[in-house]
């Protein structure tokens, strides 16, 4: 076979093969297989600013929390037709521990906490001047504590986890009282860190939601305000008053002064977020409707400016529920949502003066009247507040002042049961006074711990 003709034939073919391969092969190559994530920055390249802003951004993921607490507390009813669980879980009171209507209240909080934790690690490794590092820690810890507080509100007696573990059994479930104590301690630790920051600025910028609270010194006032709220939840009214005195509490009875505080802010810019509670209140079929009792129970409907948070309209029924007003707490999709406002601080002081160890009803009445004047409602006649009506008056003002800010359900659970009020289901606090709209509906006392948090059984 190896004759000349064959050989020529062979080489000719071989040259052709090589020619074809030379054209074909280079397009394949052997690209580098060890490349970084093409879609996202790797954690090592992130700045302190990215962590701080990311933390703020995640804290805003609060729609489910507000809808959940607002629905259970009978402030609102979600008429969204896309999912009956807004009614079955929150209004009928059958929460599914495996689903998003329970987990959605707390999971975003834990994500924010994880962000805060990574933020703290980054601060430790950032080689910052000591004061700035303390400032950054105080910022992160305050916000982490606030996130824990919301988890506490949601899960209440079921307890909550503080530590991160990939193993569901890895982190203990801390009972409620202990949880509140830890939250209080974390706020106090943050307070210390902020105070050690001195005049050093934060090593990152805060969003306009913290306008007026964006230095360690002013941010401390926010921290103390939160601490006052926790103290009230603990029933530690001495501590509450002490913390309030270090907060941004202010007595000027104007609407603007009531709104002073710290907010979640929104925008339509890329990779930013819009307000989850926004709706066009006058649209044909918005989702968020107001529980009918909210308007019905108001005693100053003509003047109370706090009713601007709702939009009165035609009556609408759905699944046996009825309403004639829609939520208007976020008139635009970039309206801010409050975290802590002066109005709440005033009401916390009133509470401490009513429920504290040495009640001062006159001082409490003064606080309530600041709030009422700012809302355009006639103040209570001087001296008309007494042991018999003080708590009712406080709860009333809290209901209208802090509408849909996540308080009503928590308040009705924590304030003492009205003596003699019928409580067939043995609900804690005043939850027995929340209205039930349909037979079979019940009031949820606390949301169960989500199934993924529990060891498999």
């Amino acid at each position, binding site marked *: 076979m190896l*004759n000349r003709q064959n050989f020529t*034939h062979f080489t000719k*073919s071989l040259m052709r*093969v090589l020619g074809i*391969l030379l054209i*074909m092969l280079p397009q*394949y190559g052997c690209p*580098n*297989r*060890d490349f970084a*994530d093409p*879609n*996202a920055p*790797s954690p090592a390249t*992130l700045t302190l600013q*990215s962590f701080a*802003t*990311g*933390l*703020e*951004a*995640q804290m805003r993921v609060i729609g*489910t929390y507000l809808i959940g607490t607002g629905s259970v507390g009978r402030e609102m009813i979600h008429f*969204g*037709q*896309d*999912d009956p*669980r807004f009614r079955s879980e929150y209004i*009928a009171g059958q929460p*599914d521990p*495996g689903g*998003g209507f329970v987990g*959605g209240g707390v*999971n975003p909080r834990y*994500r924010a*906490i*994880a962000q805060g934790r990574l933020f703290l690690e980054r601060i430790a490794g950032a080689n910052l001047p000591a004061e700035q590092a303390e400032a950054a820690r105080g910022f992160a810890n305050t916000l982490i504590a606030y996130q824990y507080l919301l988890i506490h509100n949601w899960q209440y007696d079921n307890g909550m*986890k503080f530590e*991160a*573990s*990939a*193993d569901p059994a890895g*982190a203990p479930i801390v009972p409620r009282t202990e949880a509140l104590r830890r939250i209080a301690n974390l706020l106090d630790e943050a307070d210390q860190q902020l105070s050690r920051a001195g005049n050093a600025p934060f090593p990152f*910028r805060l969003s306009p939601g913290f306008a007026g609270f964006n230095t360690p010194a002013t941010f401390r006032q926010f921290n103390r305000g939160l601490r006052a709220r926790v103290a009230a939840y603990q029933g530690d009214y001495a501590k509450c008053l002490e913390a309030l005195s270090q907060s941004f509490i202010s007595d000027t009875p104007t609407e603007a002064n009531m709104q002073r505080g710290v907010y979640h*802010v929104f925008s*339509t*810019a*890329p*990779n930013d977020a819009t307000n989850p509670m*926004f709706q*066009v209140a006058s*649209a044909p079929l*918005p989702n968020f409707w107001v529980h009918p009792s909210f308007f019905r129970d108001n005693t100053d409907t003509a003047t109370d400016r706090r009713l601007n948070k709702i939009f009165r309209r035609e009556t609408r029924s759905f699944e046996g529920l*009825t309403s004639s007003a829609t939520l208007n707490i976020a008139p*635009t*999709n970039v309206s801010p949502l409050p975290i802590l406002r002066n109005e709440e601080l005033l009401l916390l002081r009133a509470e401490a003066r009513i429920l504290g160890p040495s009640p001062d009803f006159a001082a409490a009445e003064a606080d309530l009247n600041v709030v009422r004047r700012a809302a355009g409602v006639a103040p209570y006649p001087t001296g008309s507040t007494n042991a018999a009506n003080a708590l009712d008056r406080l709860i009333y003002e809290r209901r209208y002042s802090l509408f849909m800010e996540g308080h009503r359900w928590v308040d009705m659970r924590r304030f003492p049961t009205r003596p003699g009020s019928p409580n067939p289901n043995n609900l804690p606090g005043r939850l027995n006074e929340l209205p039930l709209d349909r037979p079979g509906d019940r009031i949820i006392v606390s949301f*169960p711990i989500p*199934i*993924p948090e529990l060891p*498999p059984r």
Partner: protein
Amino acid sequence: MAIALCSSAIAQELNISGRVVDANTGEPLLGAAVRVKETGSGAITDALGRFQLSLKVSSATLIAKLVGYKEKTVVVTASTDNLVIQLQEDVLRTEEIVVTGLATGIRRESAPNSIGTITAKELIPAPAQTLDQAFAGKVPGLSIRQNTGAPGGGISVNLRGITTLQGNTQPLIVIDGVIVSNESFNSGLTAITDATVGASQSPQDQPSSRLADINPNDIEDIQVLKGPAATAIYGSKAAAGVLVITTKQGKPGDTRIDVSQQFGFNSILKVQGTRDWRKDSTGLRTAFGQAGVDAFVRSGGVNGEYIDYEREFYGQNGFINETSITARGGSATTLFTLSGQARNDQGIIRNTFYNRYAVRSNLTHRFSERLTVDVGLNYVNTSSQRSATGNANVTLTSIGYAMTRLPSFLDVRQRPDGTFPVFPFAPSNPAEIIERVRNEEYIDRLIGSFRLDFNIFRIENQSLNFIASGGADYISQRNVIVSPPNTQHEQAKAAPGENVANNVTNFFNNLWLSAVHNVNFGGVSVTTSAGFQIENRDNNSILVNVRGLTADLSSVGLGVEVTQQQSITRQYDQGFYIQSDIDFGGVGFLNVKLRGDRSSVNSDVNRFYLFPGAGASIILSKLDFWKDLSRTIDYLKLRAAVGQAGTLAPPESKFLSFVPANVAGLIGALVPLRNGNDNVRPERTTEIEFGLDAGILNGIVSLEFTYFLRNIDDLILLKQLPPSSGFTSQLVNGGAMRTNGIEAALTVNAIRSREVDLTTRIIFSRNRAEITRLDVPPFQRGGFGVNLGAYTIREGYSPFSIVGRESFGPNPNAPNPNARPGEFNGLILGDEQPDFNLGFSNSLRVFGFELFFLLDWRQGNKVINLSRFLTDGTGISPDVEAARERVRARATSTAPYVEDGSFVKLRELSLTYTLDPELTRNLFGNAVSYLRIGIAGRNLLMFTRYSSYDPEVSNFGNLASAGSIEVTPFPSSRSFYFNIQFGL
């Protein structure tokens, strides 16, 4: 040896001419190859079956071959001009070459695996809108699920059940040596439907699948390699099986042109019905409030109109027009195929359509005896309008979803002046969605393939070939989604009007370089091949979503709010392989193989993961002792094979990908929900299969039976992490699964004559699966949370197990009645996997008539029907009483919405008449070689107890399990055709 050859070469000359004919009918056979064993030269027969050879040898062994016929060997010692070679039809297809490796094949007769083949003729007796549609009921173990009825497809292809929970579920698809993509790229529709907000998971875009781009008329055959026992040589991407698709190649001789023209229409396969409120209006106030009562009274109450909205919205008879032309021809050195197809389908919803234009050229050139090069080029352009269906939230911009709120007395149809009434019970008006919302998809696709076969040497009993093959697959997908600003559903938004522009480019290329050595000694043939593979995948998708529009325009240059997303996927893999096939004189066969693969998606990008395999078969009927039996059982083969293959982890598994999270102009990055994993490996599937193939009574009956068992280890799971850890999930190798199954096929060719032929075929398959080890806590996947039905993954249970509300906590009817609250009590509401699949086809040819039908029976699969959950909620379900009962029950149970999805479908029906050849000649002279007319239908009938449109459904697209969930989908359609085919 060279000298001996040379001396014999000058000895004598043989001039042979003759014909190749069908042994039964005597008809001449076109395109048969007659090869001379001694010289390797050969000829191809023409239309009259003629061939001619001039040889410089004294004696020649001629081997005549033609696809579909048994090979025949004739020894010629003297020149002749009248040699007639009769070929026997290969009823059992034992001679067909099936693939065993990347560059090697073996006669089916000897194959150690069960390899299914779908030939061109079997593929589309009735036309299919998309290629994957035509797979149902044809090969045991190959099943499809149509995820959506929307024009343009969206079909999940599955071989032997489940191989993975999280990885790629679709078989690897190789067309003429090019690994092509069958991924489904999301369209961005959820931007409009908001299907993935809140508790819902992605993707819910009802994407089309990319196998849909291939023109079914281009396909010569599809070989179905069902699992690792056959696919080990394809390595780490082959656990889900491989479809080896070969397109039509040129044939020597006069150019033949085949023309096929189809006209037809699509119509809805099944309607659900809706409640007639005139007969019973109880609960009207509860469902729709006073406004509902008023509307009912306004409509005329009990004397009002019953508006059948399914008919209004899904009632279109969509026109179908398909033209296909294929030209094939060539000379001794150059062969070509040119084909083109134009297909236009209108959907059953107004304004929906699917158009495909495809062209292909295949060219084969023999540069010399040594060197053959094949080049193929395929361009496809499709466009479709799929409208908005499926799950929706917030504004409910989905036709089906909005219809779940639409009582039959309320008129929301378009008014004569073109405007739409405001639909008071939902934020969106379905009539308006149909007319005004656009969901368009445009695909441009180019697939280029080449194969180079170079014979390095060939001596008497040995040969060595070098083969390079590969190619590239480029896809550009463009989605244009428009929700105009002045529609009802846009009014509730801050910035009404929303447009989405989605651009996906996807590029695959691959190259195989192989050396194939063959040696024969003493009747034993050993073929050894070895080689390398390079494969690269690059995907880039850019989605821009704008809100706040001034006009009904599709531009994303407008708008006041902008969201942009980009996702890049890269995957670079390299592999090597070596394989040896030993054929013991056609009686026994043995092969061993090894593949090694490394990939950029593994945490260790440099490690080669090895996948071995082996197979053996013996044809008992060829052994001496069988002689007495051979009159009844003329063919019997026992076979066994074992192999490993892998499934790669999703490319993102190893990365911890921070997500952008800006606030008021400050740039933020947020810790992701999914944690990265720095130790992620391919899943490893080990499969063993045994089987037998038999032919009885001279091929009248043939039987194939296979049992397989698979163990899938290092199963990639989306491990749920307790959210308190800051992450909710992580992709980990954390479990094992076992699947097994049986497959059987029985073909009876009861009548076989020149005039009449009757062939009946039954295929059967049954798969079972069980999670055998779970290193992560049991978890639920799929769907919308446990209360609406989810799939549980836990040790000892099938991965298809559906659980619901009643599966957790104390329940007297559960296996563990005393479970604590929240604890799994063992109650399974159903299994998504069918008990069995059965395909029954019958083909009858009587003179010029051919009748074919195919029934596809799926038994015992369960489907979570959330469409019904929604219509029950609003009281518009047609079965009013039962719906009330379900609503009462659903406070404590999910079972009312887990339905039996068993069905029998008449997948294909065709009746064809071929004009008598003589008559054709008389009518058209030689201009027309054949003329065929016929009628055909696809999915003409469906028998099922399932209450909604089609139990073949998946709201979540292609999922190996946890897909059978229905949420107001695009209804399935049946199609009916009239066709005419002729040859030029």
